[in-house]
């Protein structure tokens, strides 16, 4: 194995490229750290949205009672019509 000869200009360029490489590594690490920070914020907010949606789903789970209430009100109307017919018959007898 023989040593490669390198003139001072090439050596300086290599050292410069090496320093630039380290700087790029540090910059990449810093930018990826910022990316991690922002993604963690997104993760927390998404978890909050999920919890809020869970609470909303629990609140709206009772809407299945609305059709039952509608049927109950309709039963009240039917019973009221029966009362109307009964009172109509009784009123005719009382007045006569």
């Amino acid at each position, binding site marked *: 194995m023989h*040593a*490669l000869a*390198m003139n001072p200009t090439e*050596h300086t360029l*290599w*050292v410069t490229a*090496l320093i630039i*490489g*380290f700087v*790029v*590594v540090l910059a*990449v*690490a810093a930018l*990826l*750290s910022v*990316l*991690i920070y922002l*993604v*963690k914020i*997104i*993760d927390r907010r*998404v*978890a909050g*949205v*999920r919890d809020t*949606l*869970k609470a*909303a*789903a629990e609140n*709206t*789970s009772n*809407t*299945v009672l*609305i*059709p039952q*209430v*509608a049927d109950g*009100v*309709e039963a*009240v*109307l039917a019973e*009221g*019509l029966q*009362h*109307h017919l009964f*009172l*109509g018959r*009784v*009123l005719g007898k*009382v*007045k006569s």
Partner: protein
Amino acid sequence: MTLLVILTVVDVLLLIAGLAFYLFWVGSLLTRIATNLEECAELVRTIKAHAELIGPGVEHINQTGGVVAGALPLLYEMAEGIVTGVTPAAPRPEVPEPALPASGTRRSRLLAAVGFTPQTLSDSERTGGNPR
């Protein structure tokens, strides 16, 4: 020369290792976010299914309640007529009494003006209620 080569290899390895570490970290975070978002989408679909029942149900209740509210005054009038019909009233006499004024009968002064005094009048009536 050897030092430069070693530093270059270290630089490249640092870049690759750093990228791999951060990308794995970001990947795991994004996977968790994706799972949460899928759960959110499912919850939104559930809420939509729940909310679809509200409109027709409330419309049905409103329509039926309007009919009930319109029919209740009729029931009230009929019940009032029944109560009026079955309430016992005072029996009417066979020969109705003459209608008398509330102020009573007034004594006529025509007989006294001609000097006639009926025997049926008492002393107080004869004197007009004034002591002599």
